[in-house]
């Protein structure tokens, strides 16, 4: 067990990407603390380590964390709350949040920020008006990004929670140009720092949102480009979330483009129809496995055996 692995990772990537110390630790800890961590003189709790590493797009690789009881309890509570949010099971989550708040270290922005994220998700579930949610989102982002939206960094660095908060903020934004700009900034960060786990959790959602932006603009070319990126991304990940919907979206887009496409050879048209049918089947069977009955019904209504062959 190497005590200083996290410090070594931070220092290596900071130098590799030529990132200023202050950009990585902004709002999380002081530059001195980060420097001392890099040198192996200072240890911090698991959330602070995780947040700092996420700012450079990294996980703890093969490093195994042995956590003290308090930190372990907080870790388990965070995991449980995140899991429930992901699965849409909100019952009892506010009690968990209250317990977390009594156990967490005080005046630690990263812990405060995590709590705000959970609170926002609960408010969304309760259908609280959007202006109250956006106010809390901005407040939460500014806990670790005090100059958010007012600086001109070459590249914006995000932790996982920051990505989620900014992403949520874009969902309430009506200005599609601002929305697209923020989404592309996040996508640029994720692509540059290439952390597989963050990609699995966030990139898909960013791409889905970009797909919707292009759909509202009726830009079919860009729509298909983001759609293919998203499908490829899910296929390479270990998750299935969204895969059936995306293949269904692709099939529908292919049908829209079918009428405007020009065929040089008849085989091209046949191959296009084959691919289109395969998209429908991939959507259908993936939805069947995941027991997504709503989507299954939608696919059946859209397709049907006569039009697309036996499902």
């Amino acid at each position: 067990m190497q005590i200083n692995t996290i410090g070594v990772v931070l220092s290596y990537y900071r130098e590799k990407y030529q990132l200023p110390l202050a950009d990585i630790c902004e709002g999380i800890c002081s530059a001195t603390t980060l420097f001392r961590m890099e040198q192996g003189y200072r240890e911090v709790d698991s959330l602070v380590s995780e947040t700092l590493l996420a700012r450079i797009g990294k996980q703890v690789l093969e490093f195994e964390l042995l956590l003290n009881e308090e930190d372990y309890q907080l870790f388990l509570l965070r995991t449980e709350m995140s899991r429930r949010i992901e699965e849409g099971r909100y019952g009892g989550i506010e009690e968990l949040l209250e317990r977390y708040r009594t156990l967490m270290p005080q005046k630690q922005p990263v812990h405060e920020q995590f709590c705000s994220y959970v609170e926002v998700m609960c408010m969304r579930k309760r259908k609280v008006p959007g202006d109250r949610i956006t106010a809390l989102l901005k407040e939460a982002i500014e806990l670790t990004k005090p100059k958010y939206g007012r600086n001109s960094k070459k590249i914006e660095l995000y932790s996982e929670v920051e990505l989620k908060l900014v992403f949520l903020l874009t969902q309430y934004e009506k200005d599609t140009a601002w929305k697209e700009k923020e989404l592309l900034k996040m996508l640029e960060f994720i692509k540059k720092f290439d952390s597989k786990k963050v990609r699995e959790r966030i990139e898909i959602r960013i791409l889905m949102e970009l797909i919707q932006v292009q759909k509202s603009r009726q830009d079919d070319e860009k729509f298909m480009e983001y759609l293919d990126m998203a499908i490829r991304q899910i296929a390479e990940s270990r998750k299935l979330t969204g895969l059936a919907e995306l293949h269904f979206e692709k099939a529908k887009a292919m049908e829209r483009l079918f009428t405007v496409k020009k065929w040089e050879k008849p085989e091209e048209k046949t191959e296009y129809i084959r691919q289109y049918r395969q998209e429908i089947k991939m959507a259908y069977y993936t939805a069947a496995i995941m027991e997504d009955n709503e989507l299954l019904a939608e696919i059946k209504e859209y397709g049907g055996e006569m039009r697309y062959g036996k499902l």
Partner: protein
Amino acid sequence: MANYRMGDVIRLSRMARNMTQEELSEGICSVETLSRIENGRTKVKREIYRQLMEKMNFSTEKNYAVCLSTDMELIQEKEYFEDAMAKHDFEAADVYMNRIKLLAGDNLSTQQYVKRESRFLDYYMKRISKEQLVQELEELAQEVIPEYKKYIDSEVVYPFRQQEIILLKRLAVAYGQVDEVEKSIAICEMLLRSLRQKYMAEWEEEEIIIMANLSKYYGAVGEIHKSMELCYEVLPKAKKYSYAPTIQFVVFEIAWNKWKLIERGEEGEEEIEVCKDYMRQAYFLCTARYDILEKSIIADFWQQHFQEDIEGVIE
């Protein structure tokens, strides 16, 4: 990354070594302190942790076949290697493994990691036989976790770490390849007993993978009903985590088991359509995930058993 509850790791390790709290704490800390550490009521200092683990003959840094290095270039290559292996891109994985070997140095843990991973790669690239694979992984397991066999048929539970679990899972797979499936089953059952002690935060994810593997091994020794039970138990768990590789694996396993039950006459021919439906689900899920290897395995199975093209039938 895995996260462990330190108190549980110490307690389970002590019990695996058959030591009392008095014996372990002697000369290191008071019995009361050890008791509080094990129950999670007090923070354990790193030095105390090191002394306790060393007294139990567990090294705190060596025996985990984990690629440990401060050389980030090496760790980066390791990430690329694991990515290529996950995509079954063995040619690329071979290139990364050669770079890892050049950078590895003489760190024991890194050497163990190289041995574990390169042996599997050698097997996939047909450079070693399945018998050689078993022999070399068994030797490595003896080196990394010398007493693992002691826990196979025992009530005593050993708190295996993630890297040890990876090695033993691989060994179980290798035993399956040489038709010593009983050994694969014994290893998986031992790992499940340990994981269910919940000393590791990620225990449930590991449990899902091991249960899925176990269902395959039960199927291989003809215990189809036991395999089916396990499949039906693990599938909702894998869906809960939306864990694609296991879902795909288990859905095909159900289809395969159904086919075996029909062949044995334990299920009627009316079940053939149900079997085919599971198989189609697995096939199109592989297609949707660009998993060419699994896709072709299912297509071959379909062709062999139903004398049709799986895609042709539904076109």
